[in-house]
C-alpha cells in the first residue's frame, strides 16, 4: 500500500487531477487538465468524440500513462514513482465501453477473480460477496451464466458488479452504454443511479445527456483536450453560456 500522505485531501477531495498532459508521439491530446472530484460526487464528462474524455478517464487508473501531471486518488499519488499500482487500482473501479467480461468465466467467476487473487478472500467468501453485488445489479439469478449467454445490458451490469465488488473509493465509467442497443441502455443507467445513491464517487464519460442532466452533481465539458467549462447540469447542459457548448447541446438534443 502506498504511503498515506494525504496530498490534496482538504475539503474531502477524493480525486485530484493536476496539470495532466498526454501525448501520443508528437500529438498532444490532453493539454493540462485540472479536475477535482469530491467524495460522493458524481461528475459527468461530456464533449465530442476525440475531445480527450476517455483518455483523461483512463489516465486516472493509468491504463493510459500520463505524459506529465499528477493524479491523486484517496490521498495517494497514483502518478508517483514506485507506487504499488495494483494496490491503488483495486481502489479505482472501472467499467468499459467494450464491457470486457472474461468470456471463459461465468458471471460469478468474473466477479470473484479479483476478490480471490487481489483481495485474497477464500472461495466461499468471494462467492458470497460476488453474489451480493450481482444481486445489487439485479443479476443474482444469472450467476452461473457465461457472458455469451447474457444480453449486452446484462453483461455491462456484471461489469459494474465486478468493479463494485472490490468496494472501490471511486468508480470510472468509460462510455458504459455506447456499445449497447438503445433498448438496453436504461437498465445499465438505472444501476448507475443506484450506485450513486449508495454514495459512490463516480466519474462518468457518456453521451447520455439525460443521464448527465438528472444524475450528475457536476458536468465537465471537454473540448480538444481541455476543460472548456464545468458546473451544474443546469449551467452546462440547460442554459450554457459558452457558444461552443450551446452548439453541442443543441446538436445532441433528440
Amino acid at each position: 500500500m502506498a504511503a498515506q500522505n494525504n496530498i490534496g485531501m482538504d475539503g474531502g477531495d477524493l480525486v485530484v487531477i493536476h496539470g495532466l498532459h498526454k501525448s501520443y508521439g508528437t500529438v498532444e491530446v490532453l493539454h493540462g487538465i485540472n479536475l477535482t472530484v469530491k467524495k460522493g460526487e458524481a461528475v459527468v464528462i461530456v464533449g465530442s468524440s476525440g475531445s480527450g474524455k476517455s483518455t483523461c478517464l483512463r489516465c486516472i487508473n493509468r491504463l493510459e500513462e500520463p505524459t506529465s501531471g499528477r493524479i491523486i486518488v484517496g490521498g495517494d499519488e497514483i502518478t508517483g514513482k514506485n507506487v504499488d499500482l495494483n494496490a491503488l487500482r483495486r481502489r479505482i473501479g472501472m467499467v468499459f465501453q467494450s464491457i470486457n467480461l472474461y468470456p471463459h468465466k461465468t458471471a460469478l467467476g468474473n466477479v470473484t477473480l479479483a476478490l480471490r487473487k487481489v483481495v485474497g478472500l477464500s472461495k466461499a467468501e468471494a462467492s458470497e460477496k460476488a453474489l451480493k453485488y450481482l444481486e445489487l445489479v439485479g443479476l443474482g439469478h444469472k450467476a452461473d451464466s457465461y457472458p455469451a449467454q447474457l444480453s449486452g445490458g446484462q453483461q455491462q451490469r456484471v461489469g459494474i458488479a465486478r468493479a463494485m465488488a472490490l468496494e472501490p473509493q471511486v468508480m470510472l465509467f468509460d462510455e458504459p452504454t455506447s456499445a449497447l442497443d438503445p433498448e438496453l441502455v436504461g437498465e445499465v443507467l438505472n444501476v448507475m443511479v443506484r450506485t450513486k445513491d449508495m454514495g459512490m464517487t463516480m466519474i462518468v464519460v457518456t453521451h447520455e445527456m439525460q443521464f448527465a442532466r438528472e444524475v450528475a452533481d457536476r458536468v465537465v465539458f471537454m473540448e480538444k483536450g481541455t476543460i472548456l467549462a464545468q458546473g451544474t447540469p443546469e449551467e452546462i447542459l440547460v442554459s450554457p453560456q459558452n457558444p461552443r457548448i450551446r452548439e453541442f447541446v443543441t446538436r445532441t438534443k433528440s
Partner: protein
Amino acid sequence: MDQIVRYFFDFPLMADYWPDILRGFLITVEMSVLTVVVGIPLGLLIAIIRLYGIKPLNALIIFYIDFFRSIPQLVLIVLAYFALPYFGLVLDPFTATVCALAVVLSAFAEEIFWAGINAVHKGQWEAGRSTGLSFTQTLAYIILPQVVRISIPPLTNRAIGISKGTTLGSVVAVPELLNVTSSIQSNVANPTALTVGALLFLALFLPFVRFTRWLEQAYAHPRS
C-alpha cells in the same frame, strides 16, 4: 487380388518379428510424446517471455523461431547427431532426434501461441489490470485460458505433423517403427511389415487427434 493379399497382408510371415515391431512402435510413441511434451510447453514459455518485451531477448527469440521454422527437420536431426559432437555435445540417436523435433515444434508452437495472445482483445488485459491483478496474474487467469483454447486446433496440426517426423530418426539409426518395419521388409522381401507399420502409426495418431478434440471441448465456453 490374391497378389495384393500375399504382398501386403501376409501377417503369418510377421510372426517372428512382432517383438521387434512392438519395440519400434514403443520407441516411436516415446519419441512422439516427448517431442510434444517438450516442444509445446517450450513454445508457450518462449511466447510468454516474448510478451515481456525485453528487446535483445526478443531479437534472439525471433531469430530462434525463424531459424527453426525454416530448417528442414531432417537436416536438423543430422546436424544434432553428427555436428554437435564437434561442440562437445554427444547425443545418442534417440535424444538427437527428439531434441531436434522438439525444438522445431517449439518454434511453431510459439508462433501459434503468439498469434493467440494477440487475438485476445486488449480490453481483457485492461479489465484484469483495472481490478488490481498484476501482469502475470492477468496473463495466467484471463489471457492464457483463452489463448490455449483458440490454439488447440492449429497446435494439433503442428504437433502431429512434427511427431510424424520421428520417422526421420531412421537416418541416424533410431530403431523406431519405420526403421524396424522397413528392415523387416527387406529381410523377408515382403512389404507386409510396412502395412503393419502404417496400421500402428494410425493406432498412435488417431487417439491423439481424438484427445485434442476432447481437450478443445474441455476448454470450451459458450460463445455468442
